[in-house]
Structure formats: C-alpha cells, structure tokens
C-alpha cells in the first residue's frame, strides 16, 4: 500500500513528474532563447511562474461554470500523472501490463478534450474560437500519431511499452527501422502539446489565449502544470518506443542514456518551435490528411511486411 503511494506521489509519479515538467519548461525556454539571440530565463523561472500563478486572483466571467472550470485542469493533471506511471523511466516502471500503450494514449487525449470543454464553458468569444480550433486540430494530427505509434508495437509484437522496450534490446533501436514513424510521432506530439508551429488554438494574435483566455490564478497554474507533464510523458513515450536502450543492467548508465535521449528530443522540439511559422488551421487539416496519414499508413505497411 505504501509502495503504491510512493509510486503514485513521489516516483515515478507526482513529485518526480512535476520536477521534470518544470525542468522541461526551463530547458525549452532556454533553448528557444539561444536560438533567438536572447539570454533566456534562469533555472528557477518555471517554478517561480507556478508559485506566482497560484497566488493570483482567480476570476471567471459571469455565467461561467465555476465547478467545471476547476475540475477540468485537475482532471487533465490526474490523467497525465497516471499516464506517467506506466511509461518506463530509465527502464523502470512499477506497473506494466499488456495493452498499457493503448491506455496511455487514451489518457493523453484527456487534456485535449478538457481543453476543448474549457473553451466552451468560459463564455468569452476567444475561448469558444480557441476550443473549436483545438478540436479541429485534434482530428488532423491524432490519426497519423496513433498509426505511427502502433509501428513499434507491431514490430515488437507486444502492446505493452515495457515489452516494446525489451524488444529493442534484441532488435535494435526502432528508430532505425522506422525513421518516418519517428518523425510522424514527433509531429503528432507537437500537435498534441499545441506547441509552435501547431499552436493554432492559442495563437496569440488571432484568438488572444484560446480556450484559456479567461482562466487565471490557480486554475491556470494547474493547466500549465498539466501541459508540462503531458509534454514530459509524451517525450518519455517516444523515447521508449523509438529510441530504447534504457533497460540496462547498470542503472546509472541507463539513467544517463535516458537523460541524453531526453535532451535530444527536447532539442528537436525546440528547434521546430524556433524555425517554423504557425500554420493556418485549413493548411494543417490539409497537411494532416493529405500527407501525414498516407505516410503513416505506408510506414505501418512496411513494418508489417518486415515483421512477416
């Protein structure tokens, strides 16, 4: 019982994920600043922002549903924290079962739907626009994302992440067999996290803040936390599915390898953020269905044939 609580609250859930989430935000902002010839924030900035948000006044426009508005970020946070329990960190996961990949993908979609609902229930016009766009974006990237993530499962003949990780130890890093799937998974992750260049639902110049325009104070703090942890869990997922090599005998080497892979992926995400311009929603829909879906289908076909 205490073991379960430890796993849930300290490591690899709860506290550990919050720390890594804040660390990810700092790393991302610092890398972006370096790309833009700026200095960037000091290491404690994300923590300071979080504390500041929790100490601010918490308002909602008249007519907004206070209970639902508070529950939505909390539900998102819980969903991603639970998802974090099943993703192996440096090869270690307390719970793992056949099919946990599907569960995690479902849990990772909860924040997206919560974001859409948050936009609808805050009465402001920008929130509604942002919420609608987020759902439209969801339909454009989710299908290629799911197909791309099924590739490693097919190759490893297992639907548990731990099983996929073990299979890479014998077969080699899956990124070598399906580099296209890797890229597609990264693009899907950028869309899920609503980062530049796919931050269409919260494009500042068009819809001010998207769904979260009217949120403030503690609720916004929970949203930020949930989004950071969602990013971290997503990156861990991709590391385990494509890069692997972290289920090693020596735990220190495993941690080091895991950390390096984490840095590589964060670097790729930040570069994409810095380099590309924001797409329009119709351009994203076109990109998603006309280019990404056929590519992902081609990749999975290749993987299936290879497995045979």
């Amino acid at each position: 019982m205490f073991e379960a609580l430890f796993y849930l609250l300290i490591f690899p859930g709860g506290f550990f994920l919050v720390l890594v989430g804040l660390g990810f935000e700092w790393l991302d902002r610092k890398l972006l600043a370096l790309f833009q010839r700026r200095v960037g924030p000091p290491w404690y900035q994300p923590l300071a922002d979080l504390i500041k948000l929790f100490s601010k006044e918490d308002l909602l426009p008249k007519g907004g549903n206070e209970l639902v508005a508070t529950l939505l970020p909390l539900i998102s946070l819980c969903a991603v924290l639970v998802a974090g329990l099943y993703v192996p960190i440096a090869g270690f996961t307390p719970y793992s079962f056949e099919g946990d990949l599907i569960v995690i993908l479902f849990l990772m979609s909860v924040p997206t739907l919560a974001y859409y609902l948050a936009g609808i229930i805050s009465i402001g016009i920008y929130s509604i626009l942002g919420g609608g766009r987020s759902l439209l974006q969801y339909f454009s990237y989710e299908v290629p994302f799911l197909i791309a993530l099924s590739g490693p499962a097919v190759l490893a003949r297992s639907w548990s992440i731990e099983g996929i990780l073990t299979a890479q130890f014998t077969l080699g890093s899956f990124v070598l067999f399906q580099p296209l799937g890797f890229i597609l998974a990264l693009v899907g992750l950028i869309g899920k996290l609503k980062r530049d260049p796919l931050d269409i639902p919260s494009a500042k110049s068009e819809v001010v803040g998207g769904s979260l325009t009217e949120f403030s104070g503690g609720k916004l703090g929970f949203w930020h936390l949930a989004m950071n942890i969602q990013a971290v869990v997503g990156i861990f997922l991709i590391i385990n599915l494509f890069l692997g090599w972290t289920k090693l005998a020596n735990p220190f080497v495993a941690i080091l390898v895991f950390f390096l892979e984490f840095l590589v992926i964060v670097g790729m995400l930040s570069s994409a953020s810095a380099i590309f311009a924001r797409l329009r929603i119709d351009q994203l829909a076109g990109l998603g269905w006309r280019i990404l879906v056929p590519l992902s289908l081609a990749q999975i076909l290749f993987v299936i044939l290879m497995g045979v």
Partner: protein
Amino acid sequence: MSKISIPIGPQHPLLKEPLSMKIDISGEKVLGGSLRLGYVHRGIERLAQKRNYVQTIHLVERVCGICSHIHTTTFCQAVESLLKLEVPPRAQYLRALMCELERIHSHLLWLGILAKHVGLDTIFMHTWHDRELALDVMEEITGGRVLHGANQIGGVRFDLDESHFPMIYANLEKLRSQISGLLDILENEPALIARTKGVAPVSQKTIRQYGVAGPVARASGVDVDMRRDNPLPPYDQLKFSVVTMPDGDAWARTIVRAEEIRESLNLCEMILEDLPDGEVSKRAPRNVPEGEVIIRSEAPRGELFYYLRSDGTDQPARLKIRTPTLAALCLLPVQMSDIQVADIPVVLAGVDLCVACADR
C-alpha cells in the same frame, strides 16, 4: 454557421496602439468589419494654433513615435518655404540621412511584428535586434533613439564630425549583411509564403480610389514615391530605385518593404559620401509672413501631407496633417472581406498601422 462579431481592440495582442474594430465572422471566414478611431486623439491641429512655430515643431514631433523625424522635417520645410529661407545643403543632407535611418528602423520594426503575428518569433527577435543598430546610430548623432529633436526652422540642430563616421559605417555594414540574410528567408521560407501569398490582394484601381500611397500602393504595382516625384533637396541629386511588385497581396507588401530597407541603406551611404561642408542652420525670423503652402513627403508608411497657413504672426493659423495610415485604414474594411480569421493578423500587419499617426 451563424454570424458572430468579434471585437479587436482597443486592447489586443495584435495592436501596437489602440484601435477598435468589430469583425463579423462565420466559422473561420471573415465577412467584413468596421473601424472606430480616436483613442489617441490629442487634437494636435487645434493645439498648433495656440503655439508658436518653434513650439509646434516639438508638438508635431509627437504625432508619432516611429516616424517622428519626417513630421518635423516636413513641417520645417513648410515654414521655410513660407519664409523663403534657403536651408544650407549640409543641413538638407543631414535631414535626409535621418529620414532614411528612420525608414530602416520603421521597416525593421514592422517586419518583426509581421513575423510575430505569423508565428515566426525567431525572426521577430532577430529583426528587433538588428533594429538596435539603426537606433544606436540615431542616438549617436542626435542623442535620441525615438524622439530626436533634430530639426529647427532653418536647418538641423546636430552635426557630424570625423569621429562619428567609423561607427556609422560599421553599423550600416552589419545591417546590410543582416538584411540580405533576412531577404533570403522572406523570399524562400515556405511557411511564411504559405501564410502571406495570395492573402487580401488589392487592385491598382482600389488603391487609386482610396488614395493610398506608399509601400502598400507600390506592392500593387502603383509606381509612386514622393521622394522621386516631388523631390525636395537633396533627393533630387540622389539616385535610388523605387521598388514595386505586381501582385498586391501580403507577400508583395513584405518584399517591397524589405527591399526598401536595402535601398535606404544605399541612400545612407550615398548621403554620407556626398555630404557637403558648411554650416548646418540659418537663423530664422520669429514671425512668418502671410501665406499658405503644401508639402508632401515620403514617410515610411506612405505619403505625408502638410498644409500650413500663416497670417503674419508667430502662430500657425491652420495646420492640417494627413498621415498615410489614415488612408490605409480606410482600405482595411475592404481588405477584410473574404479572408480567413487566421489571415486577420497578416492583413493588419500588411497595412503597417500607426494609429497615433492616424488619430493625431
């Protein structure tokens, strides 16, 4: 989908200055919009009637922060025309130098804003970093980055000597290399082209009907530039080319302004090379004889128009300013029909708003 009306402004991340727009949209399609100005109306024309000419120079400088120098230059030229005062050539060249530097910094500012609205934050950071080079030069020679206080009736209030030149040339060189890199990106970056090409094209006929001049007109192929068509010295002795593009969409406006930065850099170097010697100002009498005059000049945003009437005293009897942004704002509701919501920032940025100019 039903029609809803979203307000943009007076405070909105899109706008540098307060402006109120109501845009009707249906889904992601924009149907039209209407404007309301006046949030920064300070009544400068009315205030000018109660101040003497020297005070009016300082008043007019504060019409706009970004293009402050061209306002004072045009006003001083108007007064000097009424006084029949011949400004020394060195002062004319120095005024033109500041005008071109201002054009560079204004266009770089604008490029950053456009990039930010399209989502290219990196270009925004880089262009504003480069803008500091131009602002540093302006500060070095006049002491002010945004409001310079450089002009007086009869000439300018600053002078260049040998010690200024190395720093100015170094900054211009650095700017030149940065601009060619920037132009390369603007012409080839696929995401930027996808967001701006074909967006809100404006025909030449519409441009003429709405009385728009400046980069927006030149992007539609209208070949008009007050520096060449209505030249006041020293522009009649300087060689430069006027950039036009045929399409008239947002991308054409981007390219026109970016190329103009290059032309302005050339002009700056030409001015520095040909700088004549002599004094920088002439003493002007306090009372201006009766008369009226119209001066048109090329502000960074288009055609700037000044009408000045004096009645023999030391206070202007009527000062009328028409800034280029006012005409461009008239064009905005026309451009707003038949675009998407995501194109609104691109269209607004293409107009290069300076609402303080429009409101006066």
